């Protein structure tokens, strides 16, 4: 079964600190995505990737970087975390030749104090 694993599941960070959220998929999908979910905003796309070595900006990329070192791994990096980045973050993988069906991880709850 398709599997997307996020770590950590919960994270408390201090303002100005660096935060790295990790995502691993065993689906062999080319595409991976990072979303954040906030009440009243639904899912908003931060960064996505078409494959190892590629990253693309989504709709709200400011304050975030992404890294795709391999087919399986896709990281979201907050170099200088701010309280406005407190949110729940979801990683997903998908394949366009399969209709772009997405498989989501369980989410990371990040609190920036």
């Amino acid at each position: 079964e398709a599997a997307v694993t996020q770590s950590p599941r919960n994270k408390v960070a201090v303002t100005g600190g660096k935060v790295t959220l990790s995502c691993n998929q065993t689906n062999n999908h080319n595409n991976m995505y990072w979303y954040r979910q906030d009440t009243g905003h639904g899912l908003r796309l931060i960064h996505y990737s078409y494959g190892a070595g590629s990253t693309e900006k989504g709709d709200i990329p400011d304050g975030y970087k992404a890294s795709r070192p391999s087919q399986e791994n896709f990281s979201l990096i907050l170099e200088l975390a701010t309280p406005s980045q407190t949110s729940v973050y979801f990683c997903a993988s998908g394949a366009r030749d399969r209709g772009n069906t997405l498989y989501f991880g369980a989410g990371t709850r990040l609190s920036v104090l």
Partner: protein
Amino acid sequence: TQTVSQSDAHVTVFEGDSVELRCNYSYGGSIYLSWYIQHHGHGLQFLLKYYSGNPVVQGVNGFEAEFSKSDSSFHLRKASVHWSDSAVYFCAVSASSNNRIFFGDGTQLVVKP
């Protein structure tokens, strides 16, 4: 750019009732339309998808959705809901020519006993 609109933020029904969750989209090209379900504290899970052919598509747990090109809609229905169907439901649209997926803001379905 694709857009997705879910007109109802909250829907409350009783167990055994039928329900329809509404989704309208805007896009001029060839698209995939999908529905996802999110139980509290979990990531999104794929329910069903339409690309072409029969406009009524069947999903898991008795859910179905109907595509209407004239109305630009892809409404989700279930004939008889169970308390375990309580969740947030997201409609999504994706162009077949690229890898971007756009989500609606979600509809919170509450099923009362």
